[in-house]
């Protein structure tokens, strides 16, 4: 017990790093450890209080626990994309395909072969890894714009396969993932029971998915601050120089590996996406989804892990909020024009300049453009600047 306490309440000031061991810690300061504890507590208790007072602002307007679970799935995928784009500098418009590979694998293996959960949780990323490793070598020969176009082609090829490999994917109509086994050890996600208490599916999915988010974030964070991560960042900054100082960018080298692992993480997200969504079809994995992932990492901040999570939360919650508020009206300010969002039709039958779904797409586009123009390092960049301002206050640096 005292060891745990000492770990949590150890050194107070981050500037006093005396041992190498201090430098290696993931949560070096008291404030960060407090933040970690806060996150764990939030993970445990948020489902219990989500429909109570301060959270009703969100939960009454469309951001349910279910939405948070979706945000978690996208957070996993965008951490994967950040590993590839933010840390290795390889742009991929094809990540929706890797998501789809994981999702279709889970739906097929779970329904047809009755594969238990712990197996598909391992095998879906493995399949994604293989697909990513097949695509990866293209990045060796192509750079910049050409790579963008090839990964774009991947989306079209993938969609064609999903529409036509009917025995596995169910064709254009899609396939059901309702029968996928969801028992992990003593816990059944579909009807969770802990200490004799029943919890509904939304809560179980929230706990499961955000647990996976935590594990993936922890793993990727440790990868990017190790030798492999430094190699990836060297490739990003100047791949030729990286090659010259001895970083392997050959056919089994870091570029291919980054593609493979990034695809594996996206496939893991897909594996969780299928049972959460219950029914998946080719429409769920179009170009727009890939663009959304890019929007998430741009908004959150490229080259940061927590940025991907924040970006995923915002990009997933925003459309639900817009939908919710265009129905119920913005509090206080909305009275000025009498409820709803001005010019937005909540349903297709309503009057208005633009429908909610169109407005969402417009906002995604504007967000991408705006952040790249004004703050290319995303919300994480803004946060770093605020932190630096206060930590050096009253001096400017």
């Amino acid at each position: 017990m005292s060891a745990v306490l000492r770990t949590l309440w150890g050194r107070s000031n981050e500037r006093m790093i005396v041992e190498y061991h201090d430098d290696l810690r993931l949560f070096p300061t008291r404030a960060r450890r407090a933040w970690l504890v806060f996150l764990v507590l939030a993970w445990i208790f948020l489902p219990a209080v989500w429909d109570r007072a301060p959270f009703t602002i969100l939960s009454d307007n469309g951001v349910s626990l279910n939405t948070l679970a979706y945000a978690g799935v996208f957070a996993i995928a965008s951490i994967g994309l950040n590993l590839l784009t933010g840390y290795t500098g390889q742009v991929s418009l094809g990540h929706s395909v890797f998501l789809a590979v994981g999702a279709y694998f889970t739906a097929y293996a779970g329904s047809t072969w009755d594969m238990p959960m712990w197996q598909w949780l391992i095998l879906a990323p493995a399949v994604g890894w293989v697909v990513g490793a097949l695509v990866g070598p293209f990045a060796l020969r192509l750079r910049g714009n050409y790579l963008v176009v090839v990964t774009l082609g991947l989306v079209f090829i993938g969609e064609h396969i999903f529409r036509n490999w009917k025995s596995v994917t169910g064709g254009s109509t899609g396939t059901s993932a309702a029968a996928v086994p969801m028992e992990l050890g003593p816990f059944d996600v579909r009807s969770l029971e802990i200490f004799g208490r029943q919890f509904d599916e939304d809560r179980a999915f929230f706990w499961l998915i955000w647990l996976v988010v935590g594990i993936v974030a922890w793993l990727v964070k440790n990868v990017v601050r190790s030798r492999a991560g430094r190699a990836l960042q060297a490739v990003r900054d100047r791949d030729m120089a990286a090659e010259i100082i001895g970083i392997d960018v050959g056919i089994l080298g870091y570029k291919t590996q980054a593609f493979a692992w990034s695809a594996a993480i996206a496939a893991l997200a897909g594996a969780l996406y299928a049972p959460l969504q219950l029914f998946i079809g080719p429409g769920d994995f179009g170009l727009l989804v890939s663009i959304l992932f890019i929007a998430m990492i741009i908004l959150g901040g490229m080259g940061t892990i927590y940025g991907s999570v924040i970006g995923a939360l915002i990009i997933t919650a925003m459309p639900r909020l817009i939908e919710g508020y265009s129905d119920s009206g913005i509090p206080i300010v909305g009275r000025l024009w009498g409820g709803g969002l001005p010019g937005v039709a909540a349903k297709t039958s309503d009057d208005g300049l633009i429908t909610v779904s169109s407005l969402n797409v417009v906002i995604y586009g504007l967000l991408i453009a705006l952040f790249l123009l004004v703050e290319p390092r995303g919300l994480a960049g803004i946060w770093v600047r605020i932190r630096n301002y206060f930590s050096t206050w009253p001096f400017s640096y």
Partner: protein
Amino acid sequence: VTQFLQAGFDGLALGSQYALIVLGFVVVYRATGIINFAQGGALILGAYMTYNVSNTWGWNFYLAVFISAVVVATFSVLLQRVMIQRIFRETTGVLLGLLVWASFVYNGSSHLVGVLIGVVGGVGAWWVAARVEARIGARGPSELPVFGAIMVTIGVLFVVKQVVAAIWGFGELSVDDPWEISTSRVGDVILGHAKIATIVLAMIGLALFFVIDRYTRIGIAMRATHFDHEAAIAQGISTKLVFATAFGLAGVVAALAGTSAAAGSDLINPNMDLIVFLAFPAMILGGFDSPGGAVVGGVTVGLFQNLVKTYVVNPPSWFPVEDMDWLGAGFERVAIFVMMVVVLMVRPYGFFGTEEVRRV
């Protein structure tokens, strides 16, 4: 043989369309080094402007094409100035103009009134912003990195698609063009007049571009800028003007491509930018920075796509596999992407593109 000729003719028409689209990409890429995904938005806008002028207003079709080309070129230049070069005063002007337009339309005025007042408001905002900028000292235009610029243009593409849908609706519309569905026959081959017009239109567009590129001052300046950015500035070439011209030309080409995609029996809808994505293999084949490659690549891909389409349904007798239904409907669209990947593996810079010299 008839089947082959028919597929060849249709492929040629499709290929000229691709060539026009790719030309738009190439022009921008040569000047600025970015792939302008917003070209898809420009194409949609061009098609709908032609529709609006020729159908809704009932003006002459050729006049409609001309107006649409002017409008889309303006849009394209504004996009470059505001988004890519980030000029503060123009951003302010455009945003305010859009806001005024939207609020007027929302209050029930017609689009024309909204646009007129929006333009006035935008110009006013531009003037004020220019004064402010002069007072506080202008921040020079800083350009985005390539990846950022690409993502910005993708963002713009999505916005334009939705705005077009908000104005003209999601439904399919038919443009009143002079060809409609009339056809001629040569032997057993059916030649759609709209397709012939597309080929001619593409030829005119391409010829015009080559004349500008080879013989005018601005064309030479564009090539010089592509060759060496800084040397061009040192020679007194205004890169601002070059970039604006490149985007403007791309806009004109996009309007022509949009019109040709709307002509004949084809209908227009806000999702017609798909054809822009299908033109990517053509661009890869020719190389990003070669206008000649755009033509060769476009026609090759168009022919290939139509031949695949024909022979997958009806394979020739010598072909070992008889039934190719398992490839699925619309396989020809995937086939061109597969071809693109193969070409990229053999020649990473296309057949006519300049190989990039990498230095440490």
